């Protein structure tokens, strides 16, 4: 069995293409597993994993927990919407306290970009980044690529438009890195105030007109408007956003081709996506959720293999 060349999954930027392909291939095997009547395998039965979430999360935390349980790992959960520092304890202290209970791997979501990198330098466990502020969300990008591959085959030469709040999105950044490593072309589209000024330095196309972006792409990955991460005003109103950047079924039907519609969730229905678009045949949003478990099983399984 092949092994990953890294013992942490901190971000896609530093993961090699061959590691990405190994994760996606392994995920395909685990997808078969979780569709069996008995969904559990004993692979990680000697491993204890802590899910440490300093930011609110429903689906990512559940997805990781299911993945861990289906691999027979022991699981502990710690959730706090405040950062540990606000409670008077440092991040390293919090995590070391949990590790003292003999935990092998840490899955962490944190509001600070680079928090998992900081942690990986200072604690012994394997670290999986489950989202670090506006930086990366590597397992989301992997499951997005997995889902696209399921639908479209090899992603080389495929065109993916990422639409919405790029500035505050860790999903956008991880997706850009992942898709480019797999040979896809990437475009970002959104109000210019929500696009990082130097985003084109990452080798992506930039488009301000959502209709043109939809006409260009094979896949539209629509992002959530991150109201909770916008510390200041970037656009006048949700009404105006939905009128000029929202996607509805009529727009999808007016294209002279079929495109794939994705969203990392949770959807602000009626803002970035209308319900008739989100629930249309174009949408693979629920496939993404299912694939999330398989991809996270692959990541945890492979990292456990690279543990020493």
């Amino acid at each position, binding site marked *: 069995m092949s092994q990953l060349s890294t013992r942490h999954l901190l971000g896609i930027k530093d993961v090699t293409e061959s590691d990405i392909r190994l994760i996606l291939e392994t995920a395909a095997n685990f997808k078969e597993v979780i569709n069996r009547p008995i969904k559990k395998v004993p692979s990680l039965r000697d491993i204890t994993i802590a899910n440490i979430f300093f930011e609110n999360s429903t689906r990512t935390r559940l997805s990781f927990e299911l993945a861990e349980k289906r691999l027979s790992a022991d699981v502990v959960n710690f959730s706090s919407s405040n950062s540990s520092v606000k409670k008077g304890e*440092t*991040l390293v202290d919090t995590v070391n306290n949990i590790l003292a209970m003999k935990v092998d791997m840490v899955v962490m979501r944190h509001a*600070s*970009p*680079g*928090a998992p990198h900081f942690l990986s330098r200072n604690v012994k466990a394997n670290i999986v980044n489950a989202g*670090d*502020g506006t930086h990366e969300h590597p397992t989301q990008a992997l499951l997005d690529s997995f889902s696209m591959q399921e639908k479209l085959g090899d992603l080389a030469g495929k065109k993916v438009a990422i639409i919405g709040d790029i500035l505050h999105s860790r999903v956008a*950044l991880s997706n850009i890195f992942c898709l480019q490593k797999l040979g896809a072309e990437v475009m970002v589209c959104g109000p210019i105030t929500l696009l990082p000024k*130097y985003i084109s330095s990452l080798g992506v196309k930039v488009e301000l007109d959502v209709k043109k972006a939809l006409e260009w792409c094979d896949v539209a990955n629509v992002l959530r408007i991150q109201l909770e991460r916008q510390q200041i005003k970037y656009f006048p109103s949700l009404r105006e956003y939905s009128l000029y950047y929202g996607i509805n079924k009529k727009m999808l039907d007016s294209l002279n081709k079929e495109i794939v519609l994705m969203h990392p969730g949770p959807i602000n229905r009626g803002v970035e996506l209308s319900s008739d678009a989100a629930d249309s045949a174009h949408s693979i949003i629920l496939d993404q959720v299912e694939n999330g478990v398989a991809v996270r099983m692959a990541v945890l399984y492979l990292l456990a293999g690279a543990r020493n």
Partner: protein
Amino acid sequence: MSVLFKNLRFIRNGKISEPKNFFIHDQSFKELVDSSESEFKEIIDCSSYFASSGWIDLRCGLGEPGQEYRETVESLCQSLISSGFVKAVIMPNTDPVIQSKNEVDFVLNRSRKFGIDLEIMGAVTKNTLGEDLTEILDMHFQSGVKIFGDGIKPLSNSDRFMKILQYLQKFDGVLFDHAYDPLLSIFGQMHEGEISTQLGMKGIPNLSEDIAIQRNLEILRYTGGRVHFQTLSTKKGVELIRKAKAEGLNVTADTSIYQLIFKDKDLMTFDPNYKVNPPFRSESDRAALIDGILDGTIDALVSNHQPQDFDSKFSEFDLASFGMAGLQAFLPALVQLSQELSWEVLIEKITAGPSKIIGSQNESVTIFDPTQSWVYDEKSNKSLSSNHPWFGTSLTGQVKFVFQKGNLQRVNE
């Protein structure tokens, strides 16, 4: 006679002298012409050393009063001396802020026994909040403060900036300005550019500094007076100062030495030791700073010493404090820069350059060995803080002697 400095090369007035012998006589550092070596108790081989006038640092942070765990007056003075500095401008960002004659006198009294001249930068607005003026005249006439500014805080209120410049003219005071627009850099963690985009971090755009320098130059043009711009970091900022000087405005400028050493790429590992304000910028900004040093747009190099305790740097990047310790790594940084700038230029920026800005007469001497290796670690560290990326590594360039007010101090022995 006691000590003979043999074969010492002196850097001054833009030249490096041939090796000569020096000695201390009548509390002065003098060239030895005729006497024989046998008259000296101690002969020091200085053939690998350089000497210059004592170094001056125009921007230095302190923790006392209030944050003695970062840096006390004593630890700062010892750091300064062992780094070759005989004079330093101290920023007012303590707790309480240095904003009245009481705080000024407190710091100056504490520093007296260490044989180093501290020039206090008196805060110009109460608690450095940028609004109400402090008692500037009282600080000047009662405690001798000549330099005013809010240190690490910007003066973003145009009206206050104007009034301060007018007010300072009563005694030809100089305003030290760290110019940036705080709204344009709000929540910013690092230089806005390709790297911040890759790291998903909120950037501090060049625009923030450029627009503040431009505005403040226009206000200066209106009011008259004198502004010294601190810690330039942008290409446009250098151009603006160059143009202002050519137009005859009364401006000077400095940059932090570490702006010339590090770049935004160094932040790729999220190491909070690289978190500074202004942030480390792009290669083209750095190149413009070098040009500015060469053509005299930038008058001085500063340490911008901002000591931070371990805990405030051992954290997530966006929660860590800004600032880098800058004193003991200063000479090793000069040694690194001597690959592309001459020693004559580098030394001018920490002697004659700053001396003109603060109007000091400098009879002191700093003697250093640019080839000596040493380890920057807990043992050699004189500061109470160690927030520098080079801490724990071996560095090249060590200060050996500081001669100040008739006293010879052997440092780093």
